[in-house]
């Protein structure tokens, strides 16, 4: 093992040789260090104040040197000190590195195993759709209104310009509440067949101008099958002001459809009939499944029946007869005009997600519901 010898020759060449010998011993010994304990011994052998190699170098080389050589020796000893410190430190780093990587190796997990999941609930696709539609109209300044599911004949039909015994009532297969015979016809209870009664209820309560959006459950006497449910969900809208025109109806709904289905969808209106609007219209949107082409690849597009258009809602200008029922609250049909629209959230969800059976919405099958997580 290397030991520090007294210098006899203080020539530069002799000093060089002595330094070289010391440094190569340092590196050689550093290379043999394999453990923490060995490193500590190594550190002490070279750096201990008592009998450490550096201390000996200081004593044997520097202190013993003749005056004229002290300056040169001092500089070399300082350099050696730095070298030794660096080597000791780097050896320690090598030690620690090795130890922690050994630990990390044993701590290793199989990161390809599945994670621990906390269950998270899924929004119901119909409620989600309902909320999305309401959100679009809220952003346009529409307030949300709600109304009762069990309605009177008056609000569900009469005030919406479905006179008693009118054939238009046949189009709404109505579920009636039992034991209503003793009441006047207009007070008899039924399950609302559309959310439109809330139009009249709101106009009774609030003066124009008015902008409301009405989400809610509706019921019809339709036995359940893949495309029918006795319960479904509608979103109704109503805007009344002093100068609302048919163009406002079209523009508002066109904007709403772009917000719901993407800015590239187009809308198209055609005449229809609803007792409570006139002119009445059906609105079609360009099919958001096939982009209006009527085809998905080489297959025909089913949601739009290859027409490229999907019938999405009914709408129209509020019929003056409806305003007549609330004329006293500021709805003089000669002064105000308005538009109304209504759409089925279940149907839109069916189209949007390609669900093939409306019953799936109401069975609570978690394999179905969790797809909306």
């Amino acid at each position, binding site marked *: 093992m290397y030991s520090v010898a007294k210098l006899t020759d203080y020539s530069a060449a002799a000093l060089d040789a002595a330094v070289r010998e010391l440094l190569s011993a340092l590196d050689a010994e550093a290379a043999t260090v394999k453990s923490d304990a060995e490193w500590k011994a190594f550190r002490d052998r070279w750096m201990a104040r008592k009998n450490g190699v550096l201390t000996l170098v200081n004593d044997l080389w520097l202190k013993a040197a003749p005056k004229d050589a002290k300056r040169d020796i001092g500089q070399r000893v300082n350099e050696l000190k730095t070298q030794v410190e660096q080597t000791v430190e780097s050896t320690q780093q090598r030690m620690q590195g090795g130890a922690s990587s050994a630990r990390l190796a044993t701590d290793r997990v199989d990161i390809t*195993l*599945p994670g*621990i999941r*906390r*269950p998270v*609930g*899924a*929004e119901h696709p*119909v*409620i989600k759709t309902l909320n999305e539609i309401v959100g679009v109209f809220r952003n*346009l*300044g529409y*307030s*949300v209104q*709600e109304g*009762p*599911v*069990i309605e009177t004949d008056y609000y569900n039909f009469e005030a919406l310009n479905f006179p008693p*015994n009118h*054939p*238009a009532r046949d189009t709404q297969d109505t*579920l*009636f*509440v*039992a034991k*209503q015979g003793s009441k006047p016809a207009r007070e008899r*209870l039924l399950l609302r067949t559309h959310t439109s009664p809330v139009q009249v209820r709101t106009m009774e309560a609030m003066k124009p*101008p008015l*902008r409301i959006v009405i989400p809610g*459950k509706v*019921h019809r006497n339709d*036995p359940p099958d893949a495309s029918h449910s*006795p319960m479904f969900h509608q979103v109704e809208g109503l*805007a009344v*002001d002093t*100068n609302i*025109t048919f*163009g*406002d109806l*079209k*523009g508002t709904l066109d*904007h709403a459809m772009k917000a719901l289905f993407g800015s590239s969808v187009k809308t198209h*209106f*055609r*005449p*229809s009939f609803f007792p409570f609007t*006139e*002119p*009445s219209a059906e609105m079609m949107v360009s099919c958001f499944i096939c982009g209006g082409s009527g085809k998905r690849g080489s297959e025909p597009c089913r949601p739009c029946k290859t027409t490229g258009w999907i019938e999405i809602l009914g709408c129209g200008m509020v*019929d*003056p007869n409806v305003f007549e029922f609330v004329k006293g609250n500021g709805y003089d049909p000669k002064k105000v*005009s308005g538009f109304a629209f209504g759409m089925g959230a279940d149907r839109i969800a069916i189209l949007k997600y390609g669900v093939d059976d409306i019953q799936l*919405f*109401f*069975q*609570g*099958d*978690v*394999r179905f519901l*969790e797809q909306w997580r």
Partner: protein
Amino acid sequence: MNMKLSPTWIRDFVALPVDDHRLAEDLTSIGIAVEGISGGGDSTVFEMEIGTNRPDAMNHYGVAREASAFYDVPLKLISPKLTSAAKAASTARSGGTIEVVPFPITIEEANLCPRFTARVVRGVKIRPSPANVVQRLGLLDQRPINNAVDATNYTLWEIGKPTHVFDLDLLEGGKIIVRRARDGETLKTLDGVERKLTTEDLVVADGRKPVGLAGVMGGFDTMITDKTRNILIESAWWDPAMVRKMSRRHGIHTDASHRFERGADYESTVLSCDRVAELILQSGGGELVGDVVDVVAKRIDQAPVALHLAEVRRILGEELGTNEILGILKRLGFESVPEPGEEAEFTVHIPSWRLDVEREIDLIEEIARLHGYDKFANKLPAFSGAVIDQPDQAKDQKLRSLLLALGYNEAVSLSFISHEDAAKFSPMPAIELANPISDEASVMRNSIVPGILGMVAYNLNRGSDNVRLFEAGPVWEASGPKAMELKRVCMGATGSAVAASVNQGARPLSFFDLKGDMETLLEAFECDALCYDSNAAEYYHPGRSARAVMDGATVAQFGQIDPEKAARKLRQDVWLGEIFLDRLYTHSLRQVRYQALPRYPAVERDFSMVFGDAVGFEKIQQAVMGLGIAELRSFVPVEIFRGGAVPAGKYSILLRATLQSGERTLREDEVAQWSGKIINALEGLGGMLRAS
């Protein structure tokens, strides 16, 4: 109403510049919806959907009229050729003088039958209809019967006016009377059903008996048979409401009643009568007897409508020119007469086939529809109002987002339940339906529990063992003659609280999972006192259920379902929670009250006690909190142990008090003093200190 029409037939009346597909598109664009096209060439069929307000377009001529207005091409008149034949026949028989044979017709109910037109044809041969009639009716799925009946059917589909043919020789008494039926009278209708009549019914009768249910269906005993030689053709106009009532009462819906109850063309009774006669004469020979008998008991008053151009533009916008407006109306058969001295006001006379047009707005719709809806520019209206939220919107959203975060899937069940479930799951009377879909869906739900239980069971039956569902929605209760609508939340859970994996074992759901979820939900609301007792409804397991009482009102109940009481077959434990939102929502959402973070350390002290089973944690907590130690930050149970060294009927509990001051570091002697007080309080409850 869905019906089939033949474009070739439509083209009989109008020369159209487009092919069938384009015709279909254009008709649809003006509201005469062609929903589908099938076949080809002369056999092309349009599947039509005609709105209930447009009986005039439920036939070929009516659709041709619309097409003529749209393309601005002339509409051909239908003029049956009868006169010469009739004259010849009559002349031949009576030797030079024209013998008019008026068949006496009496209308007793002028309001219900304003007009009754008839013709007599003699010497007809009843045989199958000619090929062209059979082919055209066939396209519309109309079954050919014989030439006389087919003539009425052909006329109905051609010009929309229902007519009827009687075997003249089976009419007794030589006359027709339109009258109310007498109580006790019966009529066997063409469908072979014997109908009991009342004075609510309007009938066509001969001298002795009813022979037709007015506007709905003819009588069986006077129908055309192979033996028929002489025919009475009826073309009447019936009161729409009357026809509708009879059709409903007797449960008969016919092509005739469908049109009469929506309003047929009052002025087409003679035309249709003539057209039927013409078709019969063409196919079955015979001769007309005399002229048409046209009894008008009452005029139908179709008042002209005032049209203001300003009103048209107020509703439709400024873009419509006066010439276009007037042109559209003219092409549809409306006659607009300018009001003297008023440039922008017109009196519009309504054609007889458009009984649906009664008001200015009806005219505006005609203008909009023929202008083309898609041509109106899209605009967005200006608005100065503010958005108002529903009062409970923030609360609904808070609960919904918490429930989703707690792992419950949002579900929606139907609003109907059975009588049995309504009685089982709510003490409140349910609302019954008069015409339910089924017995299992005969009342409006007064609880969401049956719905949630049904859905949980549905999942268990399909192999999904871990289920968490919630539904937020209305329930209904009868309140005297009124219906109350109340909002509820119902949660259902079954299976594991923690699913088994390579990382950890499964832990089944327990009461405390439900309670924890309920605490999380209720904690979102402000209240002075929230406590739990064991008075949940009886369909819960009595020892594993609780009721949450917030400031004196029951806001929730939850726990394990008792499958026996709930009458449900469930192959594993099912947990339920119900929140009564009407009561919970009397509380506001919890306000955040910020507190500065503590600057001084907290001290914890544990107390290991043994209590009798009768001492519940709530009592322990109340006793300790009742000490009023301001520095006591929390007092919680850490461990509970039964059995082993702990005698039966007792349990060991490790309790942890956390003490902290906002002003200083607590001194050892203070903590010791408080600990002493706590131990005293616990011993006051019968607790025994095990170790400290």
